[in-house]
């Protein structure tokens, strides 16, 4: 099958899944009575008298299918409702908070990939030696750590014990004023990148100081996951015939490990990038909550505890669409990396 036909076919296959996702999400909102859903439109006690009017206006007591149709029409035009926490429409709120979260991901993702892959393959190369056992224990520990608790410990030590060294939040108050002043141009609303583009050292330093702890908290679980996977993948790769050939040719062990074994061991790691994305998406909610880091995860948490259901569902829908797309890209990438994979058929 040609790559283009494959992509088109996969895109078509997304339609039933996404349809199901919207149906499921809408089903959740229908757990609420029309009155409860009408309340979402109320912003002032004085408007309460008009509750039946609101139900009438938005057709909240109509049959399920009709309401679903209306709702789907709204969602397709990026209308998810209004976020009380952000005081703006849900769709705008997502874009408003996204850059902060992207900033976390920009730092966490390379850390996860580099440390995870390097430590995993090194452990495999030293199988059953002390280094291997240490890496293994570290991986299992990291995998078992409650990240929310790790975050609290980090704050206790690096903000409490070393007074104010690595503070929570996104920027300190002075730098926040600088960033919001007219001289500072917000190209991306990602603080570190904007600081570099504006050639503003203090803002960059301050932003980095606020990023250290959340990035660590966000990365730990995924580093452990990749490390573990890379170790077993590398072990498998090291047992293959081409490694024996490479060694028999008299290649240096370093070359055998780096050029022959590790490259082939990377393939399974690529296939789990989807899981890493999901791990980051889940982790962002917890991390941003602990560090009071106002990104999309913090907003989702605020909405959840304030039972702002349209925001939470908008956030869930947004994430599922992203997740499905990431998995599609991963599958396509996989066929590029591993020539044995025939499109749409898996490994022969």
């Amino acid at each position, binding site marked *: 099958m040609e790559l283009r036909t494959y992509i088109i076919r996969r895109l078509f296959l997304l339609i*039933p*899944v*996404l349809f*199901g*996702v919207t149906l*499921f*999400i809408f089903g*959740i*909102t229908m*757990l*609420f009575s029309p009155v409860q859903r009408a309340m979402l439109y109320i912003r002032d006690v004085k408007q309460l008298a008009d509750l039946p009017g609101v139900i009438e206006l938005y057709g909240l007591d109509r049959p399920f299918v009709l309401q679903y149709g209306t709702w789907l029409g709204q969602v397709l035009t990026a209308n998810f409702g209004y976020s009380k926490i952000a005081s703006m429409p849900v769709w705008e709120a997502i874009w408003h908070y996204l850059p902060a979260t992207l900033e976390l991901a920009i730092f966490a993702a390379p850390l996860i990939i580099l440390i995870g892959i390097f430590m995993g393959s090194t452990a495999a190369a030293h199988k059953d030696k002390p280094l291997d056992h240490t890496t*293994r*224990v570290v991986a*299992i*520990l990291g*995998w*078992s*750590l*409650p*990240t*929310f*608790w790790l975050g*609290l*410990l980090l*704050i*206790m030590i690096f*903000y*409490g*014990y070393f*007074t104010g060294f690595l503070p929570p939040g996104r920027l300190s108050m002075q730098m926040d004023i600088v960033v919001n002043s007219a001289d500072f141009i917000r190209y991306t609303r990602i603080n570190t990148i904007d600081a570099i583009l504006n050639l503003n050292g203090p803002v960059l330093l301050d932003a980095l100081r606020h990023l250290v702890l959340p990035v660590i908290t966000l990365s730990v679980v995924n580093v452990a996951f990749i490390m*573990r996977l890379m170790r*077993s993948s590398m*072990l*498998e790769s090291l047992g293959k015939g081409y490694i024996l050939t490479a060694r028999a040719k008299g290649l240096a062990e370093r070359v055998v490990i780096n050029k022959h074994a590790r490259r082939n061991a990377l393939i399974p790691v690529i296939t789990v990038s989807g899981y890493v*994305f*999901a*791990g980051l*998406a*889940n982790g962002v*909610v*917890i991390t941003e*909550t*602990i560090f009071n880091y106002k990104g999309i995860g913090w907003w*989702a*948490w605020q*909405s*959840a*505890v304030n*039972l702002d*259901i349209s925001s*939470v*569902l908008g*956030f*869930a829908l947004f*994430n*599922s669409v992203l*997740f*499905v797309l990431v998995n599609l890209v991963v599958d396509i990438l996989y066929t590029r990396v591993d020539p044995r994979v025939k499109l749409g058929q898996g490994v022969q």
Partner: protein
Amino acid sequence: MSDWKFTARQLAKNPLSMTGLIIIVIFVIIAILAPLIAPTPEGHRNPYMIPRDGFFATPQPPSENHPFGTTQGQYDIFYGCIWGARSAFRVALVVIGITLLIGIVLGSLAGYFGGIIDEVIMRITDIFLAFPALILAMAIVSAIGPSLKSVMIALTAVWWPSYARLIRGDILQVREEDYIEASRGLGASSGRVIIRHVLPNAIYPTLIMASLDIGAVVLSAAALSFLGLGAPEGYADWGQMTEFARNWMVGPPGNPLKYWYAVITPGLFILFFVLGWNLLGDAFRDIFDPRLARR
């Protein structure tokens, strides 16, 4: 049978898995003996609610009456941690039990009958798997109202699809075996073939994976409780006790680590509980991973 002996020998040989097993056994003992280790005070109605010593907000350090100290609102940390083991097992067993049941029923139907039934069930799992798990759980909990029951419902909803898929895959292999054909030839009904012949030969990998997921379920439940979406205030729940500590991460100037006992203790219980299951699971995965053949 030799498989079981092999597995047992591998586990006994591996110090990490033995450590895991010991940790799990200790937690089982704590959970069973909770009423003896941390007796419920006289006249206290629900033993799962942590007794309080007053209503003062600031946590108090370990003392004779409170060996681990008290957390925000004077809830006894020792009592909460011990009874928290019971809550943890309860949540995990309920969630794993129900997800297994759903997973096994739907997975067997899909795997055994194939065709349109398989297609429909697998597309439904696709929908559930299209969400990052914690985010879906969070959405469900906030929709049906935060409570421990909601947490269990939400975790069940996000957990069953992976078991359904696992068991379906194993059944696809088993149903082609000759003995299945034979029992069908003898006129056995589909239900009988599935329950008596297919499942017993396909179920073990799923059962083992599910039991090792106990740690992961407890970790997710703790995360939801920490986010304020779980147990009611004062319930013996490690996640919630960690959440109490959020206001006390940093002590007064001059003594920044003053409230360490409120922050560290409940988290340590979660860590060790999950660690026990993961240590055991790690060894199992090595034993069952066909790519790392028995050398």
